[in-house]
């Protein structure tokens, strides 16, 4: 991974919290009525492949595993609303031969208010010789 990519931001992308999307999650996971918290994964995936494949980041994505994930809600996500998803490379660290990439996404409502933050830590594993 290229350390210099730290801090880079990506173009904001819209994500519709559509009934179809919410129903697909409910069909898979059940749970009470309402927007399931991990619907944000689908929002992240509007941008995530762009970040992972960014030549400037130079991530060896064949050796990448998902280390951890965090969602922080500033207000509930509403069914039918459109969120704007903006990704940022929050940090790049190297430790013990592995690379740790934190991608942070801000999800804003139509009026620009912050709705949620999603943080994904990806681990680029050291390739054994």
């Amino acid at each position, binding site marked *: 991974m290229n350390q210099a990519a730290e801090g880079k931001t990506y173009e904001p992308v819209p994500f519709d919290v559509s009934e179809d999307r919410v129903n697909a999650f409910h069909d898979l996971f059940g749970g009470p009525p309402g927007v*399931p918290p991990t619907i944000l994964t689908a929002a992240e995936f509007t941008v995530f492949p762009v970040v992972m494949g960014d030549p400037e980041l130079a991530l060896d994505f064949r050796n990448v595993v998902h280390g951890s*994930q965090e969602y922080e809600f500033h207000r509930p996500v509403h069914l039918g609303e459109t969120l704007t998803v903006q990704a940022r490379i929050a940090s790049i660290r190297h430790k013990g031969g592995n690379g740790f990439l934190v991608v942070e996404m801000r999800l804003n409502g139509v009026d620009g208010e912050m709705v949620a933050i999603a943080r994904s830590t990806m681990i680029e594993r050291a390739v054994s010789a």
Partner: protein
Amino acid sequence: MSIRLQDLRVGDALPALARTVTREDVRAYADASGDQNPLHQDDDVARMVGFSGIIAHGMFTMGHLGACVAAWVGDPANIVRLSAQFRAPVFMGEEIVAGGRVRSLDEETHAVVAELWVTVERDGKTEFAIRKGEAEVRLPN
């Protein structure tokens, strides 16, 4: 059904939620989430990176954990934070069990923090697909 702060104690268990993970589920999850990584769809790709076959998306397992937490609080809108660390793969046909326990309660803010995990029994051992997960929920007054 919603939980109430006055009924909770530190150490209380969340009702555990179990499910068996199938190929069809993981396929459907790829479409629902947009994560089309072939590691979760193509056995040959999974074998190339050292697994015996495809594994579930970490976020599939976290989706299940999220449903466990939402069922416990009664309304997903009350969840203000949800986190997970992915520690072990989940293979097709395996049963995953999501659970947790109350770590702290705040009488003033009505914030409840629970520690979370997802286990899978493999070769007579309990593996943690997710550990050190955490949820913070805000209960209505």
